[in-house]
């Protein structure tokens, strides 16, 4: 066996997220890192993970990583395909999903996310893609994993726009963000305050690096 000498940030993030998925979990998966993480889990310790893509593919078992959420590979390997109104009503808001995955351009200390605009809404510096499935994923999955690179531009004191809630508890079905997986480590909400706290750092990452990459005064557990 060759020791692993190096890995990319994306690989590390995928592994860290995959490890936190329990076998049998029903996952609402987007394209990119979430799809990679969920399929990695499925290929290793969690063969019975159920992958649901917002395109309506339920129980997809892709043999290669899909490039879009509507990839034909997902349709062909799914247990069943349903319409888009159905996936968002009977399945997502129906409260059937254990783990939802989200990315974002900005995250605040309570796991609220912005994927709408940087700058003012009416005169944005950067117009981002928008909400997509995020608001209801954040509110209705039993828990949410966020995957985002840790930089001061992304980890901000104050969001430019609140696209999805970090802590919807009570109001909706889920508890909100339980893990934020970054390229430096993993954050989890503090049990009392709910503030995201660094609970794991990858090998060779220092607390100082994590603090400098964060736009708020980061606490480490």
């Amino acid at each position, binding site marked *: 066996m060759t020791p692993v000498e190096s890995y990319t940030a994306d690989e590390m993030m995928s592994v860290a997220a995959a490890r936190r998925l329990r076998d049998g979990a029903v996952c609402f998966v987007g394209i990119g890192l979430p799809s990679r993480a969920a399929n990695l889990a499925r290929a290793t310790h969690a063969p019975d993970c159920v992958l649901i893509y917002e395109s309506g593919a339920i129980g997809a078992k892709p043999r290669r990583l899909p490039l879009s959420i509507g990839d034909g590979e997902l349709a062909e390997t799914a247990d069943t395909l349903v319409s*888009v109104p159905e996936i968002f009503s009977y399945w997502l808001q129906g409260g059937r999903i254990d783990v939802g995955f989200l990315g974002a351009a900005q995250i605040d200390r309570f796991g609220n996310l912005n994927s709408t605009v940087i700058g003012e809404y009416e005169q944005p510096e950067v117009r981002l893609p928008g909400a997509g499935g995020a608001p209801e994923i954040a509110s209705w999955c039993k828990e949410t994993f966020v995957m985002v690179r840790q930089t001061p531009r992304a980890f901000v004191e104050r969001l430019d726009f609140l696209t999805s809630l970090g802590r919807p508890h009570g109001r909706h079905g889920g508890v909100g963000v339980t893990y934020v997986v970054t390229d430096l480590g993993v954050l989890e909400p503090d049990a009392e305050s709910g503030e995201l706290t660094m609970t794991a750092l990858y090998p060779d990452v220092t607390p100082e690096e994590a603090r400098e990459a964060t736009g708020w005064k980061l606490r480490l557990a």
Partner: protein
Amino acid sequence: MAEIVPLDQAVRELVDDGDAVALEGFTHLIPHAAGHELIRQGKRRLTLVRMTPDVVYDQLIGMGCAQKLVFSWGGNPGVGSLHRLRDAVEHDWPAPLELEEHSHAGMAAGYAAGAANFPLGLVRGYEGTGLAERTNVGWVVCPFTGERLAAVPAIRPDVGVIHAQQADARGNVQLWGISGVQKEVVLGAKRSIVTVEEIVDELDPKPGSTKLPAWTVTAVCECPGGAHPSYSHGYYDRDNAFYVSWDGISRDRDRFLAWMQSHVLDTADVAEYHRILSGSEATPV
């Protein structure tokens, strides 16, 4: 009852300047050929409605066809930004673009409400988010539980446009694979255009297929390859390389305009588009 007509005729007769037009297809069966025909005919002041305005709306917006966009996620899936959409929103080029944005769940509820002739759809969401302040959302209170639910307006476009795999000679339509909101947008629209890969004598039943009876459709147009660079399950795959190359083409205004000139404005129809495309830089497979 559906009429089987050429696409240019359908677009000429059914789409007016200023119409609300929804081209749907959730990552699959995106009606690109119809979008190109809207551009060729120089339609203007359109309200474009679509959950995922991707390359097809980037083209329409960049060519100045749109006045307003109603949407839930606007990006080049798996690639990045839609540069023409961003240029319109950030720099008013070629014209300002009004936005009404929802979540996917909100758009889906709006389409379902449109199909059912309801004035509103319901979502257990929006509350507490920035969307609630920025978009066209209302509230209703459940008379049984007291819960406040978000209401989104029904989506009832003037023209609904989809691509499908097959129609029969009477105009009955069948599509299969990922079905998105294809049924809802046709049923909710005042008029509809369905482009298809082929017109067959008899639709053969497919597992998981959606059918639209001929009497629910206004025009059916045979357009083989009409979803490219999206795909038609059972006919051809998604042209992932094209989506990647679009990032470069669309990033620069002049390069975008040149590409649209040679691939769309200078071509007569989807067949010519495919002939030009097969010799161009756009698909470096």
